[in-house]
């Protein structure tokens, strides 16, 4: 039996429609050999958490550029924990000011990638920090 590949869900929580980064990253993860599910825009934290559990993903990558990450990112982690998905790693990206990083870290977001993070560095992070459950 061949080994299962890392499964990633790229998700856009909230009402933000700026999906250029999320779409580029989805392609990049696919090209790097991961299995990718992209949710599309306008997902509620509830939708993301249920889909992530249902799809049995190893990693959820949240993208937000609207400034609503302070509410949305922690909410996704909270719902995953409530619903038994606490073994799913959650990372975030987008327009995230430095002063919010600690708060997101404390809320359980394992890594945050802000503008300028190279695709290589994100793929590298996933390879080093995420394994198939």
């Amino acid at each position, binding site marked *: 039996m061949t080994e299962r590949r890392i499964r990633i869900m790229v998700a856009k929580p909230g009402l933000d429609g700026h999906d250029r980064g999320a*779409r580029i990253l989805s392609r990049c993860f696919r090209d790097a050999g991961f299995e990718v599910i992209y949710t599309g825009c306008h997902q509620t934290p509830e939708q993301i958490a249920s889909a992530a559990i249902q799809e049995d993903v190893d990693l959820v990558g949240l993208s937000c550029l*609207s400034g609503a990450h302070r509410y949305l990112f922690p909410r996704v982690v909270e719902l995953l924990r409530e619903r038994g998905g606490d073994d799913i790693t959650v990372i975030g990206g987008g327009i995230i000011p430095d002063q919010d990083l600690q708060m997101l870290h404390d809320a359980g977001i394992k890594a945050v990638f802000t503008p300028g993070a190279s695709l290589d560095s994100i793929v590298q992070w996933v390879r080093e920090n995420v394994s198939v459950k």
Partner: protein
Amino acid sequence: MYFSRETLKQSAESRKKWEEEVSNALSQWQDQKERWSTVSDLEIQRIYGPEELQNMDFARDIGCPGEYPFLRGNQITGYRGRYWTFRMFAGMGTARDTNRRWKLLLKQGQTGLSTAFDFPTLMGYDTGNPRALGECGKCGVAIDTLEDFMQLVDGIPLDRITTSMTINPPATVLWAMYCAAADLNGVPLKKIGGTIQNDMLKEFIAQKTFMCPPEPSVKLISDTIEFGTQYVPKWNTISISGYHIREAGSTAVQELAFTLRDGIEYVEDVVRRKGLDVDAFAPRLSFFFNSHIDFFEEICKMRAARRMWAKIMRERFKAKDPRSWWMRFHTQTAGCSLTAQQPYNNVVRTAIEALAAVLGGTQSLHTNSLDEVWCLPTEHAVEIALRTQQVIAEETGVASTIDPLGGSYFVESLTNEMEAQAWEYIEKIDAMGGMIAAIEKGFPQMEIADAAYRFQQQLESGEKVMVGVNRYVTDEGDEIPTLDIDDNIEKEQVERLNGIKRKRDDKAVKRHLNELRRACKKGDNVMPHCIEAVKSLATLQEICDVYREVYGEYTDPAIY
């Protein structure tokens, strides 16, 4: 023929000799790279000369400013009579905060207003809706009811200042609020001027704020165009926008082609659905382009856009009024060209992009603030951005003569080439059955995704350079002050909304919403009902829920 036979002969001879010298020089001094291309990957030659323009026809392809095909501008006197409108995009937090920012900008010499709404407003949800949690006031101003709107325009002379509103799915509602506010302030509708963006096709293609499916979304737009034509003659009822298409990662040619093709779709819909004569409404159509960092590509894109639209209106739609042939457009410098790293460099980028927009002949301009990659602009940053336009207008001399780059071998060649490539796209979409059909196939979305990914790969490989991002990188970041929107305003806005709901006449609200529902079902124009509904203090979401109920909801097909 653009040049005499004699000129072409001389040029051919000297070019042949020059090319021999180039190949000798290259054996000693190699080019820095093999392929030279624009930021959106159009290949650029080493030089351009008369040969490239030998098939140009002055009268057909160029002409004078203010005359068909308007390559050199719509206005016969260019910027001499009047500069472009200085129109900075502003909106944050509550209506009161935004009103304060508007007044500050007007005091600093801004000549038109422009409104940014927050995501719940953009998507047709009230503050406090579970889907909108965390978003209130973050990316723009939160508007739930006419009372918020009245506060937004408080003290603004609606008969003298024009206001642009970046609103799409709920454009009918926000415009209804503007009309109602004018009415309540005693200003007749025929005196108010401004723009609603109201361009849904580009939302499906790029920006992703949508509510109902494409077909009814376009119907609502035709309603506004019809209503404006009848009752609000100075209003631009649509701003057909390439800006977001470009921000989503398109090339300049894709931006040009998809925007114009969207424009064609709207004109077709109004003519078919409303039976209006094209000349009755075409003069009020307006456009919106992105000005990216590749200087000449942007100038040429804007020149080509004007010429193409003139041809589309005259030849495809048989418009007779020269004002129908004009492409009037606003420009914003490219948000996606700004860098979070070394943010002060953004001032330079914005200045160059603004200069390109002016040389391309824009009629209205927003210059981005240096901090906009991080947040909504601080007062200091937005002032620098506004001053950038003022320096270009008043100090540099570029506004002294019209289309100063016209006739340049390179500029005219690149303009022609971009136009030719854009026509290819337009023909392809025509063959698919139009833009709605193309969107349903995912065609423009996929073309943009490809271009965005290609550019990102070029950045990663170093083939394309962004200063401070993949070259001249420094470890120490520049700390800049940023604007933070207080999370607590959400609670205050919800309380305000609940207060309004308590004091209004619910029966009247229900009656107007029912009338709106009936109009939607019958295919009647929604605008008169929308105005009555907002006057009764129906909320933005209550009206949008009627649309969602009758027309259905659109969800993102998640194409990547």
